[in-house]
């Protein structure tokens, strides 16, 4: 795709979450928490959903104990005016009751999702969380 289309693509992608409904987590369903400065989407059965906020508004609630796929919209324009836009996906199996931190960044025109799990017994308070990439939701 030609680079001049990237800002347009980024604008389009940025509008997508507004169209998503909030992911329904049933009372009594196993869940975990995700803290992030982004607004990630969750993919479930071929549809993207916004994540529901936790009751304390300090995190999002996510379903636990089965593999889930998350996606984040990223866009960055460098000093030369070239815009890099992407929609990276990540999947992992959240543990019930755990808290995860997820951030995203662009480096060298590649997009990264940075995911760790809170572990208060560790010096940094976080441990590596095993994850793999996730498929685009609508391609399933």
């Amino acid at each position, binding site marked *: 795709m030609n680079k001049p289309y990237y800002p347009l693509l980024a604008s389009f992608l940025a509008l997508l979450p507004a169209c998503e409904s909030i992911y329904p987590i049933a009372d009594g369903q196993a869940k975990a928490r995700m*803290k*992030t*400065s982004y607004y990630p989407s969750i993919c479930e059965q071929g549809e993207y959903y916004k994540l529901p906020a936790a009751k304390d508004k*300090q995190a999002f609630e996510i379903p636990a104990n089965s593999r889930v796929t998350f996606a984040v919209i990223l866009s*960055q*324009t*460098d*000093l030369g*005016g070239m815009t890099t836009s992407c929609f990276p996906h990540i999947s992992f199996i959240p543990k019930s009751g755990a808290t995860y*931190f997820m*951030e995203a*960044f*662009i*480096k060298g025109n590649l997009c*990264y999702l*940075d*995911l*760790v799990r*809170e*572990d*208060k017994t*560790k*010096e*940094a*308070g*976080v*441990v*590596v969380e095993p994850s793999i990439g996730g498929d685009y939701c609508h391609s399933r």
Partner: protein
Amino acid sequence: MTYKTFLIASVFFLSGCATEYKSLGYTGGYTEVNGYGNLVKVYFLVNGYTSREKATQGLIYRCAELAIEKKKAHFVLYKNMTDAAKGAASALPSSGSLSENFSSYAYVLFLDSPREQSFDAHKVAAELKPIVKAK
């Protein structure tokens, strides 16, 4: 986090003068976000009138200030949370750019005693203060 994210984004659109060393405002500056385990994410944002080197120096100086405030003598920088979880410290922060603006950021862990790749907070503060606070 959302408010700070908005403020950081606004720096990229509102600029005119070179960034001074101060808390985040319309021309840039530093800010930090707590809540990543025991890590603090520290940012220093500069506009197009300010060098990238100034962003890096401002960020490391801000980390030293925070360490001293927290009565910690040392600190280590991590480029991302995964590196922090692995204990893979870095001598330099991460960086990013948007249009003519530039940001430097790192996840910081404050320490009582030195270790490999750690910074001495008082030494950093003494060395960088005349540089980052120069008009």
